[in-house]
């Protein structure tokens, strides 16, 4: 991989700003960290393009309307993060008598988890007949689409709306004419040849549909990802997979499928949740909303616990309180997603924040005992907190798994 300085040497050094960055050096730095594309520079020389070819992301970013797939840079999420979450599509056949009903279902399916809306991203339409297909595409065209079928049927749909072309045979001509991304299928060797031919034919936005021979799909997708990251341009594209059931789909989410075509929505919630988990940036932990949570049906005499808004901390404490079957309040303070000790050390879990939270949540009106239980790990804040708030502070256990016995002793 070229360094920013290596790249800078080959840039025009006009500092024109047309690439969107103030200087050529700034642009070079973005290129080196794969956060910009060389094509953004209108004055780049052919030689520079040639020699800096390695700057392009190892896996091409492909867009189907607002759905973006590909452009991954690592094999393991802990190495950095996965950038573009697996797009989930529901398969609908143009002959399906329940087409309208299923389309409505997929559009309406929405879950909210940790402040994010989880939904199915695309509809894949299987075409059998030009007329039926065109009608089906018309109905679904406000969703990002995958169009599947024989080339002549596909064309009828493409006249209605663009989408990712998933042809039963060669689709270069269609992809070129309608300027749509294209799926190519085959064994690894065939895929590499076809992507090369597609490029020669002027089709650059490609998605790979690997057909493993003597290997499993996980093996095949792992090999594709590894080879792409090692610089094999022919396999440097996002991938698509049609899983047989929910667990195969789950495997695809974890192991390198960029798009999944699902046959039904049966396991949509677990799959969407898994996707959220796997594609969360490990550097930016999931956070829960800072507020006063009710566990069970607490009343004016119920205990009040306090902890941070790091999702894992919240889930653990909430689970441990839940297991006691004692109704409680759980006050969550905004520590920008840090756990108790880290938040304390980084000055994010402070007396001021707790005092503010007590005030803003109106805790005073909910309980009459004016006592709050703080995590044992921040016992040191108790004196100051009592002074700042006038509340009585009780020091809870270091580990929330001891909350049950803590509540017993009370």
């Amino acid at each position, binding site marked *: 991989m070229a360094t920013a300085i290596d790249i800078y040497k080959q840039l025009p050094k006009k500092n024109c700003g047309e690439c969107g960055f103030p200087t050529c050096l700034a642009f070079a730095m973005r290129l080196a960290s794969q956060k910009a594309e060389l094509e953004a520079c209108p004055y780049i020389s052919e030689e520079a393009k040639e020699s800096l070819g390695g700057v392009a992301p190892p896996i091409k970013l492909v867009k189907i309307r607002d759905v973006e797939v590909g452009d991954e840079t690592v094999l393991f999420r802990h190495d950095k993060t996965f950038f573009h979450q697996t797009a989930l599509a529901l398969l609908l056949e143009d002959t399906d008598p329940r087409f309208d009903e299923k389309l409505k279902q997929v559009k309406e399916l929405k879950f909210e988890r940790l402040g994010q809306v989880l939904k199915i991203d695309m509809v894949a339409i299987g075409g059998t007949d030009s007329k039926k297909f065109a009608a089906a595409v018309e109905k679904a065209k406000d969703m990002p689409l995958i169009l599947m079928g024989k080339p002549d049927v596909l064309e009828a749909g493409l006249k209605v709306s663009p989408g990712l072309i998933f042809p039963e045979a060669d689709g270069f001509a269609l992809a070129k004419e309608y300027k749509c991304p294209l799926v190519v299928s085959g064994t690894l060797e065939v895929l590499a040849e076809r992507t090369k031919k597609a490029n020669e034919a002027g089709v650059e936005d490609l998605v790979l549909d690997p057909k493993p021979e003597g290997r499993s799909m996980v093996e095949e997708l792992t090999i594709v990802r590894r080879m792409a990251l090692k610089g094999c341009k022919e396999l440097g594209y996002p991938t698509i997979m049609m899983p047989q059931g929910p667990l195969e789909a789950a495997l695809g989410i974890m192991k390198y499928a960029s798009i999944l075509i699902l046959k039904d929505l049966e396991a949509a919630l677990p799959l969407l949740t898994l996707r959220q988990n796997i594609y969360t940036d490990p550097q930016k932990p999931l956070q829960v909303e800072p507020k006063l949570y009710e566990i069970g049906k607490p009343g004016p005499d119920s205990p009040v616990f306090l902890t941070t808004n790091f999702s894992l901390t919240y889930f653990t404490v909430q*689970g441990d309180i839940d297991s006691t079957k004692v109704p409680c309040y759980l006050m969550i303070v905004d520590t920008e997603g840090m756990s108790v000790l880290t938040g304390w050390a980084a000055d994010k879990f402070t007396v001021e924040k707790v005092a503010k939270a007590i005030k803003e949540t109106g805790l005073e009106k909910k309980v009459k005992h004016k006592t709050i239980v703080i995590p044992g790990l921040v016992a040191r804040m108790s004196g100051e907190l009592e002074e700042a708030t006038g509340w009585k502070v009780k020091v809870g256990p270091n580990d929330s798994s001891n909350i049950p016995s803590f509540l017993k002793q009370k």
Partner: protein
Amino acid sequence: MANFEIPRENWTGRVQRIKIGESLEAGGANTLPFLKFEGDCPLPRLGMEIFDVDEDLGPEIKEAFPTKEPVGWAKAAVAKGAELLSLRLVGTNPERANRSTAEAVETVTKITKLDIPLIINGSGHEEKDKEVLRACAEATQGKNCFLGSAEPERYKSTAASALAYGHGVVGLTNIDINLVKQLNILLKDIGVPPDKILIDPMTGALGYGLEYTYSTIERIRLGALQGDEMFQMPILCYASEAWNTRDAQGKLGVEWEAVTGLACGTAGADILIMRHPESFIRLKKAFGGI
């Protein structure tokens, strides 16, 4: 394409192959899960979780098993195909049902008669666990059970009971790869052989911290394959944790547990413990199809 060569990783390390009970082997991988083209990657062993009392269990489990009676439950789980069982003696907790140590020993003794590899867990009550695990270890001497759990702050008595009666230990840490290593070093230092240790990295269920568990397992496994002996013990995950979440109800609970188990297995778990027979069967089928 002349230069088309499939990249194969040649790891230097291998996961310890261990035995649970008389003959159940686990571990042994020298590459990441499911990558048969480049090495050994045995599918995870699938076990089931049972309890001595059923007070915390939801209706899904109570309908699926005779949960009032742990030995009958164990038999039913074995009939469903469990390769091992993990028994949780939660009823011994003095703050809960407070079953006696003698009762726990009786339950354990009866279950070991079924000739099924067994993990014996206390209730999490530090003092009582010392007594219960020691007594259960003695009663099952030589059966090569695994005792759960040894934790960084409290591992000595569990390890001592295991060593005294020829059992192994499950080392439990809190989704933290550094603690995994520390605990394994501590266990090694007091004489627990590496083939008598299982790593329980703590399972965050789907939607409840799964991503932390997933990446911790991947990093432990990569460490093992890169040759770090303190990461080479097989990894044990409780997919059953899914049932302790709010999402896990009815049919969704089955999916929740199955996806949790699959994710742990994909990251590198060598042994998966399930609670519901349906998710157990789904996972078994899924692994068969990989």
